């Protein structure tokens, strides 16, 4: 048995294709991103080594920090909205009829491509004929804003579309976790006279805290690297008001051909994501994990 299952040749053959792919297409590139960040390079011509210039220049690049701030704002919005998704899931999981059907309805937008979602929301936000402003005109609101052209509103408007995209996903995760809680625990609490709100807050929430922490990481890291909807809906505009780290990096590299500088931005993005993951893990680690 052991001899057959230790066949070196077979192990190599089984592991190598996948390992090669992730090494060549994931690990080598992240190292190279850091390295290219040390270069002045237009993507095709000669590279010139310029040391830490790109990384230092980034530190005083206002547009980079503005983009980072926007990414951070998205991360904060996303984290706060998790509470809303959690409340909806708690409602869904209290023996509501049709809960299974509803959570599937909620999930539909998540299945669509970001191009479809972005194009649809461009139409919804259309200043004169869009769904939203038409609705506002109908109820007598005449100065409806141009949602995506207004610098102070654009990020918020995009965030609503992001909520539309991801709400069903988080509700699905919480619902699945809540359904895993043994019925006996809830019954015992009911016999002891706990109200539904007490049960939700003092029993169900602590029991799915582990899942909640995972979703915090998902929401924050997901927001830090957010790109698709923003790129298609506004391209980071107007005047950089919805620029985020990933769109700034993409522009530097593939629109301005500053591949070296873009790589430095990409490397910072990697660092931000890893630091955020590590930090959240550290901050949310409790002494004892609750078991049931």
């Amino acid at each position, binding site marked *: 048995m052991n001899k057959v299952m230790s066949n070196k040749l077979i192990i190599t053959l089984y592991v190598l294709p996948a390992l090669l792919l*992730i*090494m060549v297409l994931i690990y080598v590139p992240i190292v190279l991103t850091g390295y290219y960040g040390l270069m002045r390079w237009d993507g095709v011509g000669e590279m010139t080594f310029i040391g830490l210039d790109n990384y230092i220049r980034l530190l005083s690049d206002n547009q980079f920090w503005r983009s980072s701030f926007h990414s951070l704002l998205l991360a904060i919005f996303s984290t706060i909205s998790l509470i809303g998704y959690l409340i909806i899931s708690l409602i869904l999981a209290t023996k509501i009829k049709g809960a299974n059907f509803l959570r599937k309805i*909620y999930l539909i937008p998540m299945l*669509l491509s*970001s*191009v479809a979602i972005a194009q649809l929301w461009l*139409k919804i936000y259309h200043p004169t004929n869009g*769904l939203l402003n*038409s609705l506002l005109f109908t109820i007598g609101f005449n100065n409806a804003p141009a949602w995506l052209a207004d610098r102070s509103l654009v990020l918020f408007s995009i965030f609503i579309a992001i909520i539309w995209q991801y709400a069903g996903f988080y509700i699905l995760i919480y619902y699945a976790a809540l359904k895993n809680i043994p019925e006996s625990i809830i019954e015992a609490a009911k016999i002891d006279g706990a109200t539904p709100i007490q049960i939700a807050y003092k029993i169900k929430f602590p029991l799915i805290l582990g899942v909640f922490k995972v*979703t915090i990481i998902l929401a924050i890291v997901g927001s830090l690297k957010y790109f698709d909807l923003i790129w298609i809906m506004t391209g980071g505009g107007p005047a950089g008001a919805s620029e985020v780290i990933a769109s700034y990096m993409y522009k530097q590299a593939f629109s301005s051909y500053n591949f070296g500088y873009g790589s430095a931005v990409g490397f910072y993005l990697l660092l931000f994501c890893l630091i955020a993951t590590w930090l959240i893990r550290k901050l949310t680690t409790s002494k004892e994990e609750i078991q049931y």
Partner: protein
Amino acid sequence: MGKQSDVVKTESNTSRKIGYALLYLILGIIAVFQVYPLIWLVKFSLKSNREVFSESPFALPTEPRWENYTTAWTQGNIGLYFFNSVWITVVAVVLTVLFASLVTFAITRMNWKFNKLTLGLFMIGLMIPIHSTLIPLFSFFLSINLIDNPIAIILTYTAFNLPLTIMILLGFYYTLPREIEEAAVIDGCSINRIFFQITLPMTMPVISTTAIINMIYNWNEFVFINTFIRSDHYRTLTVGIQSFIGQYATDWGAIGATLVISILPILIAFFFLSNKIVEGIAAGAVKG
């Protein structure tokens, strides 16, 4: 006394009912928020521009203009993009599931020194933001002449979906009893036969889950295809409709029809496979 408690009971019953009605109202509003934009999309996909601009956006199209769909399909090259999406998605999914199964089998069933380390490499891969790999990948594919070649797309999809797929497979492999495989070894069965004729068929349920998840991600992928593919004849639906819409920016009906065509396959798949899809997304939650 008994009467009073009856009163209390009916009161709490009524408030219970009101409470439930409120909860349903909240859930219903969210359902409308999630679904109405899509209904609105179908409505304006059947309208002419004159209807879109002069009539209420909530109105049904007076006379559904199906020609919007023929316009989108013929002028928008949608048929070609559709075909590209299908074959690129299918090839990438098959490669991902096969390679991931091989690795998971080697990690959970075979004895070797670096299996924990290898598993760790795959799991850390889950956390890497794709944008941090984009520039090196682009210049790598450029240097080996794979820019504007679907092979670059298929390899990238496979690589980036492997970690998640392995993670989902792993949970299933750990719960799978080993007795059948052990018996096969004693009977002198070769490892290849064990894997392909015993293990792979046994893991079909989880393979279908991961295949569905992979399919949705690949079908909807935007960044890689937008960066690595230049020419129209290799474009997939996501990027294809993006460029088509760019040209027809003012024709709402054609845009709507294009979008409906692009999301219809996913919606149909969801209608038939919703339980599998829900399960797959819950299992793949770590990717996000």
